[in-house]
């Protein structure tokens, strides 16, 4: 759906909204459903989230200025809705005493982060790391979808601290704490992956 059509329908109201709702559904449902499913992990909840998002889109359509594209704006509304569904009392996780990363681990992590021309042995290690990561990440998404989803959105859209504060509707200080929690939670759920990075090429 073109944003000019959207703005026009918002201005015209009435039947134009009904038509535009159908058009929104046809244009964006699949991609938003996928986002919702990934975040909430439940088909019915994802369907409900997308329809609720479309309703919110029309309630707020007058605030869409057309500076950005339509989909990112709708996605941000979906994410707010998803976060509201996921929000629950946050249990603080005590920071590990040994939270620093050694120079060796740092080097291993660097190797994980860049594309290279790996040897068969390195390739096997990479596959093993990928398996550990996928396993840990899946558990992270299932058990702590709030932090995992925000981390996914950071990767997808390059969110800054300010963007995350806006998304979470939190103060800058609370947002920095949330980001710190993301990092800690990732370390907890991905500990095997981190351990592999530490142990790679050396004795366990």
């Amino acid at each position, binding site marked *: 759906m073109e944003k000019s059509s959207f703005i026009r329908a*918002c*201005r*015209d*109201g*009435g*039947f*134009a*909204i*009904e038509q535009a*709702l*159908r058009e929104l*559904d*046809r244009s964006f*449902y*699949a991609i938003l*459903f*996928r986002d919702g*499913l*990934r975040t909430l*992990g439940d*088909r019915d909840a994802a*369907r409900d989230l997308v*329809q609720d998002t*479309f*309703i919110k889109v*029309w*309630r707020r*359509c*007058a*605030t869409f200025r057309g500076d950005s594209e339509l989909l990112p704006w709708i996605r941000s509304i979906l994410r707010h809705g998803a976060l509201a569904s996921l929000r629950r009392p946050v249990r603080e996780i005590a*920071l590990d005493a040994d939270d*620093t*990363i050694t*120079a060796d*681990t*740092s080097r291993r*992590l*660097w190797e*994980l*982060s*860049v594309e290279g021309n790996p040897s068969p042995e390195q390739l096997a290690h990479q596959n093993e*790391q*990928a398996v550990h*990561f996928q396993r840990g*990440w899946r558990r992270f998404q299932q058990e702590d979808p709030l932090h995992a989803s925000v*981390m*996914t959105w*950071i*990767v*997808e859209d*390059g*969110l*800054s*601290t300010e963007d995350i504060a806006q998304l979470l509707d939190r103060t800058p200080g609370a947002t*920095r704490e949330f*980001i*710190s929690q993301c*990092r800690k939670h990732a370390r907890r759920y991905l500990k095997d*992956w981190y351990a592999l*990075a530490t142990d790679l090429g050396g004795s366990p």
Partner: protein
Amino acid sequence: MSVGTDEDWLDALAGRKPGQPLDERVNAAVFEGLALRTSIAAVLRADPQAAQQGEAATESIIDADREIALIARARAHGLLSPDRPKNPNLRRSEGTAAWSAQVPRLGFAVVLLAAVSVGLWTSFHEPVIAVRGAQTGTVRLRDRNPGALQRQLEQELGAAGVPVTGFSRLGRVGIDADLPVPVPAAIALILARHHLPIPADGVLSVEIDAAVP
């Protein structure tokens, strides 16, 4: 863990390049963020093969039941209330809002006046079209240049956002169009200009015969 390193970690996770030079502590945060970014991106790339993506793919682009549910939900939220034709969330001052409440009535009056004016105007000019009446839902017009009138109708209704299909069958040209219901003022005006009645169900079918000179 300092706030600074968390910010470096976030920047790396988001794909923003770190400033130079990096000390060892910042390096660790950046590498950690980059490695996570690479691995999360790989998971996202692999997503199409994942089961959940397969499920998402089963959600068709057009789903009548889904659309009906959405419209019903919008109606339940008062978005499509017939007595609230304008979006209630458009920000207006109170005075403007009060004035805007009269817009539908005013719009109707304008359309009526325009329709009467157009009718009067055309009655004093050489009639190029004549309504022969609507039979089985099809309106028949007569014009000296049916093709030109067909194109004009297509153009005018199309510009008003109406999907129009032109046709030529049995030596007769015409158009089929699905009008929004209720018919907006702008479209009603076009219909009035061409002596076309407003179809109750929004389905407009027009055939144009060649008028004898």
